[in-house]
Every structure is written in structure tokens, then in C-alpha cells.
């Protein structure tokens, strides 16, 4: 049996694979089977992040061309497209998206990740990530201003001199303003973790320049109260 064609084909080839598939894939699948997976529209309907509104106010022409007006539909569109950009440019190979319960990660980034945070279409396939060249991003939303992100995507070393992140000039139009891709990826990143009520600040970083999305939707009204205009440096 152990050296026969049928033994190797059926037991090792099919049988052991099936056993492992049952334990390593079907079991976790079954555990979360009862949890609904939100669509992007459902995610968007649960609250527009204020940074999306801020983009509309800072870059009115570009925003109008890319999305039109601020609405749940255009927010969903920005999230979906931002997620596409995040995958296409392999952001997920240098930025993870889960906070572990060890190594002081909750002090650095905030609450430890839970399974239900990943039950939505923007985590399909799930973007846990594999390497942290740059910081984890699952608690990034609202931590830094849109201005910071615009400057950073244009030339990361202008903001963080030791950064090894490449510049993403194709996120900008000819005038140097963020284009649809740029505004979408910023919206996506500002959305990450926006459902968390609070998280720590460290090393002198003050509180975010904008109120956090999860507080209430009315916080949208406060958005854009900061400086006006201004393209990348």
C-alpha cells in the first residue's frame, strides 16, 4: 500500500490533502460562517470618514472630476478604488494590517485586531500582510492629516527622511494635485481603523488633526476646518 500507485495517489495525494483542508481551512471557515460579510456599500453607509470630505474641500476641482460630490456612493467608490490601488501597487507587502496581542503592539498602534473587523469585501482576499517595512496600517485612519499623506505619497523622504517607501507620482495629476487614484488611496488608508473608538499616540505625535470617524457622522461637519488649499510641496 505504501509503495503502490493507488496508495500514494489516494491516501497521500487526495486523503491527506483533504484532511488538512478540513482542519486548516474548512474549520475556520465554518467558525465564521455565521458572520455576515459586509459589502463595500454597507461599509460606506456606516459612516463617511471626515477625511473624504476634507479632500473634497481641499481639491474641489480634482474631486469633482474624480467623484462628483460627497455621498455614500462616491465614498464607496473611493474605498473600492483605493483598495484596488493598495493591492496593485503591492502596498500590502510592506504594510501589515493586523495588530498582534504581543510585543507591545497595542501600545504602538491600538486595540488588538479581532476577527470580525475583517468580515467585509475590502478584506477579500484578507490583507493581513507579510512584512512590516513600514508600519502596520489597520489603525492608521485619522492618525495623520490628508496633507501629510499627500506630501508623503509625493516624496516620502520629505516627510520621513529615513523612509524607504517609493514616491508614487502616478497618484498625482500634471499640476501636482492628487488624482482619482491619489484621493482614493488616501480615503482607503484614512478609513482603515476608523471604526475603532480610540488608540494611543506615541513619541510626541499629537492627536489627529481631524476628529475621528467613529465618533459620529456629525463629525463630518468639522472636517476641513484646517488649512486650505495647497498642493504637494
Amino acid at each position, binding site marked *: 500500500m*505504501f*509503495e*503502490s*500507485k493507488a496508495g*500514494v*495517489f489516494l*491516501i*497521500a*495525494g487526495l486523503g*491527506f*490533502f483533504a*484532511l*488538512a*483542508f478540513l*482542519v*486548516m*481551512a474548512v*474549520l*475556520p*471557515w465554518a*467558525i*465564521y460562517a455565521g*458572520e455576515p*460579510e459586509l459589502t463595500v456599500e454597507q461599509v460606506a453607509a456606516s459612516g463617511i470618514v471626515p477625511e473624504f470630505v476634507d479632500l473634497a474641500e481641499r481639491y474641489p476641482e480634482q474631486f469633482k472630476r474624480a467623484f462628483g460630490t460627497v455621498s455614500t456612493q462616491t465614498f464607496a467608490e473611493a474605498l473600492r478604488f483605493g483598495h484596488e490601488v493598495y*493591492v*496593485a*501597487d*503591492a502596498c500590502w*507587502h510592506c504594510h*501589515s494590517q493586523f495588530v*498582534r*496581542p504581543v510585543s*507591545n*503592539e497595542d*501600545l504602538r498602534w491600538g486595540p488588538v485586531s479581532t*476577527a470580525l*473587523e*475583517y*468580515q*467585509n469585501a475590502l*478584506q*477579500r*482576499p*484578507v490583507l*493581513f500582510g*507579510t*512584512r*512590516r*517595512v513600514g*508600519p502596520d496600517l489597520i489603525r492608521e485612519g485619522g492618525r495623520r492629516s490628508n496633507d501629510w499623506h499627500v506630501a508623503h505619497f509625493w516624496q516620502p523622504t520629505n516627510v*520621513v527622511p*529615513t*523612509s*524607504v517607501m*517609493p514616491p*508614487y*507620482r*502616478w497618484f498625482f495629476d500634471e499640476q501636482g494635485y492628487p488624482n482619482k487614484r491619489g484621493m482614493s488611496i488616501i480615503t482607503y488608508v484614512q478609513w482603515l481603523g476608523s471604526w475603532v473608538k480610540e488608540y494611543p499616540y*506615541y*513619541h510626541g505625535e499629537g492627536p489627529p488633526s481631524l476628529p475621528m470617524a467613529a465618533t459620529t457622522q456629525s463629525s463630518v461637519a468639522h472636517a476641513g476646518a484646517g488649512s486650505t488649499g495647497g498642493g504637494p510641496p
Partner: protein
Amino acid sequence: MTAAGGASGTGSGLGATTAADRLVDRPLVFAHLVAAMVFLAVSLLAGFLFSMQFLQHYPLPQHEIFSPGRWRLVHTNGVAYGFLANAFLGGLYWAVPRLTLRPVLHRGLSWFLFVAWQAIVLATAVGLLAGHAQALEWGETPVWIDPVALLGLILVAVNFLVPISCLSGPMYVAIWYFIAAFVWTVLVYAMGNFLPQYFVGGAAAGAIAGLFIHDLVGLFVTPLGWGLMYYFVPVILKKPIWSHGLSLVGFWGLAFFYPLTGIHHFLYSPIPMFLQHGAVITTIAIELVVTTVIVNFFMTLSGRGDALRTSMPIRWFYTGMVFYFTTCLQCAFQTTLAFQRIIHFTDWVVGHAHLVMLGVFGFWLLGMMVYLIPRVVGTAGWYSDVLNSWHYWLTMLGTLVMFLDLLVAGVVQGYMWRELSPWDEVLAASVPFWFVRAVSGTAILIGQFLFFYNAWKTWQLRPGAAPSHAALMENMQPAAT
């Protein structure tokens, strides 16, 4: 061993054809090996470009198709589907007909698959650079290519399984590994590329993605690699494998434990903790299985240690086995939760991955190419044994330095993160390690280009080719392999 024993010996008699030789489509083997070298060159260059980004000296212009992140995808996918897959196919088209004493199912199908597979790999590279990646590590192949690639894998399996199915009675070890690999590769590819994309979401999909990454190494690359070792090592050493019993333990242990470890890629993640514990235990069990295989191969070498010096393929094979034991031993430790706290997400894991893919399977396939190329081209040996030696030492030292460098870098990064050092300080601390990584990568790159040049010059020496000048003929050495 009877079938393998019928294979052509070493050194002399290369021009003569044996019964098994008439079953092998030598130009097809050569074509796959050349394709493997081309994709290896592209993949290594992509990796080198990406490493320059870490030193803030990325040389290509700022355009999206030159995005360093996208070239990283070309690096990993090129290695898996361009280099490894082609080199494995070359080895299989050589070994399987000799082991079964039958040709593969259909010569036309084999050539069709050769062309189709290159088209799939090229389309993958173009798709990745154009921004069509699928968010699945090592399965970034754009979703519109996945069904075609799966069909190709099924046809490859059929092409080889038909001659294997004609065998009767107990089969030689290599064939066990090949049968299992053909079945597993198809299943793994289908599972990983379709389930998390279309059927499962959230943390459960993370479990499947971990299973896919792991199975791609454990159920596609590993069994084909070991199967080829069980074929080539006895043929070159002209002696049987030391213990048939240990061969059985090694194969069945791998088949049982290897697929059960996928979740160890996402420890401390939101996947249920009891499953993570299970994956840790099976991963440690694998190390015990691996030890039996390693003992078996080193006892086979016992008494023929001179082959490490005199036979370049054996030197590659056994260096790869030392690295294999190293990487599996490392794995048994790094999979524990104590190690995971520090090393997860750091360069430690990157070092591990390079040792596995290049240091183990890359070395085995390079050794196999050193053995096969003069035989499929029909020359008495290599154009230059000195270049072969340089190829070995540059690649071996480059890989070793890269592995150790990234290992230490990972520990430094992990502890600095735990101490809540600012992120930019961790980056600054990493730069010296990234510099050493780029230098060691350059050594590997130079080694491969010496090898490609050597293969090109060897090809020019093939029978029937007009020698470019007489001096070339004087360089011909008796086969050292």
C-alpha cells in the same frame, strides 16, 4: 532502483544513447532549462532592483510600471512559476521516462505545454506590472490567468501520470513524490487562487491563504525537489539510497504533516488560537521527519565524500541539503509563539524564505542543470569548469551571507519594535543590513551570469555546430560531473 540504474553513467559515453535516452526528448528538456535560466535572470534582477529601493537608490524612473512594489511581485512569482516550474519540468522530462521506461503521454502535448507555460508566466509578469495583482501572496497571478494556469497544471499532471500509471508493483521512491506532487499542485493551486477570492472572506480566508503559501512550498516545490534528489543522487554516486525504510518514513511523514501547518504563517492573528497551536505542533513534527530524510541522504554519501569535491552536481545537492536541514530546524524554532513575538513581520522571515527557495531548491535545480546541460546539448562536458566553480562559490557565499544578515536584521528589528523605538529609528538601524543584503545579492547575480555565459559557450560546442575558433576546442575538458 532498476529503472534509474539504466540511466546513462557519468563522464564517458555521453555521445552513446541508451534505451532510456531514446525515451527522452532532449531538446524539450533543454528548452525548459533555458526558459528557467531566462526567468531566473529576470527574477534576480527584479529582486536586486527592489533591494536598491531599501537603500533609497532605486534606479528606474518614477513610472507606475517601474513601481518597486510591482517588481517585488515579479521577483517572487518569477522564481516560483518561471524558474522553479521550468527547471522542475526539465528534470521531470528527463527523469520520469527513465524511471518508467516509457515516454510521456504525448510529445506534441509536451511542446504545447512548454509554449503555453511560458505564455502564462509572461502574461503574469505583464499583468503584475500593469497593476492586475491578486491580493494573495505568491498567488498574485492576475485572476484572469488563474483558470488557464490551472488547466496547464492538470495537463502537465496527465502527461506524466499516464506513463506512471503503466507501472506495476512497488514503485521507486522518486515516483511516490512525483505522483503526490502532481495531485497536490493542482489541488493547492485551485484552493488558494479561487477560495479566498470568490468563496471565503475575512480571517478564515487568511487561514486558507496561509495554507496556500505553505502548500506551494510544501506540496509543489518540496516533493518535486526531493523526488529529483532521490533520482539524481543515486545515479551520480552509482549506489543505492542507504535505507528504503527511512525513505518510506520521510515520504509518508511529509505527506501527513506538511499540509497541516498552513496557519503558522499567521500566528497571533485573529484566526482561532487553537488552530494556531495545532499548526505549531505539526510544524515541529516536520523537523523530525526532515531529519530522517537528511540522515538517509548523508548515509548514502558515506564513503563517497570525495564526490563533494569531484562532482559539481553532488556539491550543489548536498549544500542544498545542509541548507534544507538548517531552514527546517530554523522553522521548528521560529514557529513557536516565543519566537513569533519578536521575529514575525521582520527580515528574519525574508532570510528564511531566501534560504528555502534559493539555498535549497534553487541549489538542487542548479546542480541538476550542471548535470543535465552537457548531456542534453551533447557535449563531453562544460565549456569551463572554473566558471562552474565560481558560480558555486559566489552563489553559495552570497546566499549564506544574505541569510545570516537578514536573520540578524530581523532580531534587531523585532526587539526595537518591542521596545517601542520610533519607526524611523528602526529603519535607520536596518540600513546596514539592507546594504549587506544588496551586496550578497549582487554576488548571487554575478554567479548566475557566469553560469549563463558558461551554458551559452557550452551550447556553442554542441556537435554539428561550427566552432567559432579553434581555441574553444582546446578549452574542452573531460566531464567533471
